[in-house]
């Protein structure tokens, strides 16, 4: 019997272990007892929400029902062997090892899982260090102040005959800078200690989804072929080690459904063919392929050769999807720069904004950004539609005559006299 077919038996086993009657479990999850009976006897396939509901009712992880403890254990052992570079006949004897030494096998598999979790945590925190604008700005402030103190202190220490006027001035400077350094260091420590996300950041559902999409390089060959196939989507989300939480899997499933709908409507090969003729012009491509511009933008972002980034925000302006592109900073914490076309098209369905953006501050790079807004769901009377905006970010390949200076987020944006500024930049004292 296939592993998948045993899911029903595992549900039955778990239910009996929990001392729960079939009828009670069926009632709890909102299905008939006879249907649950069919499931438990492996006569009905089960997946999706029903599986999640049963797992939830039984208080187990869905994978415990679909994969089984032994399979998970052997998979962990194989992973450990692979990571350690164990090859040859021994590597293929994980089943035997687990059978002969179940206790030791459990220890090894637990250690392997712990290592994987810690690696993910390190990766997320490293990413956070690189992208948190507050942290980056604080470090910049510390280093700059340290540079001023070091330089001034060296002058005072090394210059034997320093004019009193200079000496007094440098003493004042050191006094000012050392106070500033102390304040900055204290603020930084306070920020790090007070941050409630510090321990949970590695597990935030949105970051799980980003890690999952990045691991797949934002490309899902299965869905390109299968289209909107709930089973294929479920398989992808259930098998993803990055998706640890139910919320993460839920968000990922939504993203994959969109990918599948787009793949169904517009194949990558058709898009590539039109791109060869028309170039990266989303409006012309949309006309040629008879597709909405938003879909064209999403599909273009899936083409590795374009090296494009993609952002999607909902009606509240919250970024709900991001495919990063080198040099274009999207803050993970706090609000984005409101000058981005992503936000200017919100609520203006049908409008396609195209803008050369020059992101100030960090990398000072230029990008061609195309954004549009689309409605979600069916229309209904007297109800404002839900909308989402999509922005494709292409690396600039030629010099543009006009460009819009934007930032990442106000706090670390150096733009002078910006009409959209929400708060002063910590890079200078102007507003």
């Amino acid at each position, binding site marked *: 019997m296939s592993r998948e077919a045993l899911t029903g038996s595992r549900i039955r086993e778990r239910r009996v272990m929990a001392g729960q009657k079939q009828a009670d479990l069926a009632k709890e999850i909102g299905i008939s007892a006879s249907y649950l009976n069919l499931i438990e006897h492996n006569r009905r396939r089960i997946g999706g929400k029903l599986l999640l509901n049963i797992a939830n009712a039984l208080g187990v992880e869905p994978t415990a029902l679909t994969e089984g403890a032994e399979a998970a254990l052997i998979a962990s052992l194989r992973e450990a062997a692979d990571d350690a570079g164990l090859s040859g006949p021994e590597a293929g004897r994980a089943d035997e090892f687990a059978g002969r030494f179940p206790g030791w096998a459990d220890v090894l598999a637990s250690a392997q899982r712990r290592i994987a979790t810690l690696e993910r945590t390190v990766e997320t925190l490293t990413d956070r260090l690189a992208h948190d604008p507050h942290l980056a700005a604080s*470090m*910049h402030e510390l*280093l*700059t102040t*340290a*540079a*001023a*103190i*070091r*330089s*001034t202190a*060296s*002058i005072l220490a*090394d210059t034997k005959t320093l004019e009193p006027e*200079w000496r007094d*001035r*440098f003493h004042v*400077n050191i006094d*000012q*800078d050392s106070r500033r350094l102390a304040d900055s260091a204290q603020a930084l420590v306070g920020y790090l200690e007070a941050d409630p996300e510090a321990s949970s950041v590695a597990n935030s559902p949105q970051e799980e989804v980003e890690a999952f999409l990045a691991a797949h390089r934002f490309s899902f060959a299965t869905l390109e072929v299968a289209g909107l196939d709930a089973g294929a989507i479920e398989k992808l989300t259930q098998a993803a080690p990055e998706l640890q939480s139910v919320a993460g899997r839920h968000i990922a499933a939504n993203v994959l459904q969109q990918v599948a709908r787009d793949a169904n409507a517009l194949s990558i090969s058709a898009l590539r063919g039109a791109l060869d003729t028309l170039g990266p012009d989303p409006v012309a491509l949309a006309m040629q392929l008879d597709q909405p511009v938003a879909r064209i933008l999403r599909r273009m972002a899936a083409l590795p050769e374009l090296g494009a980034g993609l952002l999607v925000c909902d009606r509240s302006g919250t970024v709900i999807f991001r495919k990063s592109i080198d040099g274009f900073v999207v803050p993970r914490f706090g609000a984005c720069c409101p000058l981005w076309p992503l936000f200017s098209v919100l609520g203006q369905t049908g409008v396609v904004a195209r803008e050369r953006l020059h992101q*100030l*501050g960090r*990398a*000072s790079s230029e990008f061609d950004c195309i954004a549009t807004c689309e409605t979600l769901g069916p229309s209904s009377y007297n109800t404002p539609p839900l909308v989402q905006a999509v922005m494709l970010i292409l690396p600039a390949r030629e010099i543009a005559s006009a460009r819009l200076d934007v930032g990442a987020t106000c706090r670390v944006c*150096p733009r*002078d006299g910006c009409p959209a500024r929400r708060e002063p930049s910590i*890079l*200078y004292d*102007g507003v």
Partner: protein
Amino acid sequence: MTKHVVLVEDETNIAEAIRFLLGREGWRVETLANGNAAVEVIRKARPDLVMLDVMLPGKSGFEILKELRADAGFADMPILMLTARGHARDREMAELAGVSRFMTKPFSNAEMLDAVRELTAPGSLTA
């Protein structure tokens, strides 16, 4: 003849320390605290050396560097970049844009003075 350096640095106390150190070596130090006017000032003054911070109000040090290097008349001008942004990527970007020397803060005075001497020595590739 007195050598002339344009120092674009918004951190007053760092600018003051550099002004003292280079002044003692006989340099005339012109300081700007905002990037916006920098290119224009440098074009007019044609100094012997430009020292640039990266994170500046107005134009960033990278923008100033790119604009200067885009002008054939300033292709060989020695430009020393001093920045707290010491990522490999920043250094690479500066080098691609044509910086003569890239130094990260905090730097030692001796190291900075050595770089200035090397960049402006007769026969230096960028002098």
